[in-house]
């Protein structure tokens, strides 16, 4: 009887992991695929057409291309980071892709994104939300890297990297919510604002829930 319960529990956990990771992997790869047209450096793409005034600014233009390149690279690199198989059997892959993720986020992804938040679509609150996201993305990646490389506190490293990945994944979840609210019949700007807030705070909440379920002393994970 006990073994049956254990097997059922294991099956549930595995099923949950598949249900979580299958769409995450698929949508992440789709996002990377969708960024490819931007590297033709053609401005006739609707996203850039809307920002034609900004596109004429060299700093914004460079930041944009740097940011999408960094975004695609860090989302791709992060896909390998949470695999327990790679972590146990192929630790070298985890270290290399982890370093790529950290360097890309800290040196180019977050700074270029932070600059672009000042010109982000939406009102003051939406820009503030983007800024908050950029700051938290930078801070969580920084803390996660320091915890592993300097303090050798791998548990803290894991929790901060979960937070960092949650922020990186807002690019994916934002698009999902945007499509869902569009189908629901929301107006463009309402849809944009709601999708943004839900993706940022929703992802942060999911990350905290995962950390809370895994850690014995949740509050200490925020300080260490």
């Amino acid at each position, binding site marked *: 009887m006990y073994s049956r319960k254990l097997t059922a529990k294991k099956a549930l956990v595995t099923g949950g992991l598949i249900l979580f990771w299958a769409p995450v992997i698929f949508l992440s790869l789709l996002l990377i695929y969708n960024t490819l047209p931007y590297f033709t450096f053609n401005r006739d793409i609707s996203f850039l057409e809307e920002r034609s*005034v900004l596109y004429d600014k060299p700093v914004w233009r460079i930041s944009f291309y740097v940011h999408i390149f960094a975004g695609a690279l860090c989302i791709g690199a992060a896909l390998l980071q949470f695999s327990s198989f790679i972590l146990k059997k192929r630790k070298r892959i985890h270290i290399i892709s982890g370093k790529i993720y950290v360097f890309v986020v*800290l040196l180019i992804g977050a700074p270029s994104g932070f*600059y672009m938040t000042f010109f982000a679509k939406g009102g003051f609150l939406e820009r503030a939300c983007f800024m908050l996201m950029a700051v938290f993305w930078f801070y969580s990646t920084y803390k996660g890297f320091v915890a592993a490389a300097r303090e050798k506190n791998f548990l803290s490293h894991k929790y901060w990297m979960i937070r960092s990945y949650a922020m990186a994944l807002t690019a994916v979840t934002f698009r999902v919510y945007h499509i869902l609210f569009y189908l629901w019949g929301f*107006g463009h*700007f309402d849809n944009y604002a709601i999708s943004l807030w839900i993706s940022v705070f929703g992802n942060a909440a999911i990350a905290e829930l995962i950390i809370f379920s895994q850690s014995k002393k949740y509050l200490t994970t925020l300080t260490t």
Partner: protein
Amino acid sequence: MKTLLIAATLAFITAGIYGAIDVSRDIKNGTFIQYQDEDKIVVEAFGKHDNTITEKKKKQFIVKNKASVAEIKVSDFSMSDIKISDFSRGEPPMLYEALLLEKVGSPDSVKSADVVTAINDTITAINERANEKSQKDSSNTTKKEERKFSLKLYSRGRPRPITKETVAVQSDSTKK
């Protein structure tokens, strides 16, 4: 590692400071991008609730407006018969169409529904002026032909009016 962390922190802070300066500069110059305005115009133009306006409709509307603004050429605002008394501070006085265009702003930023009507007024005004001009120009076609002929005569591209004297000088030089 320390170098990386310091470089990253500096890059992040610099991006923030530069972004803030850039935005303040844009606000000061009145070139700060306003995304919401475009949406509001569409809503005003259709006179319906935001939810009923599809993206396709919005795009069509914006493209249409941009095209109508693009039709207005700078050459249409060229002035003729300028007098010194018309100038204040050395600048030519603004035409009605030019004033309207200034109200409209750059072709990229379609700001309000009023602008659309202003653009249409401008286009009709320009067309009327163009018709008047074309009527006047038809009488002056012979003069233009003479001018073209004179351009061909002077290889260095300096057009000079053909007078009896110049013809006489040319004929003398050929005799010599």
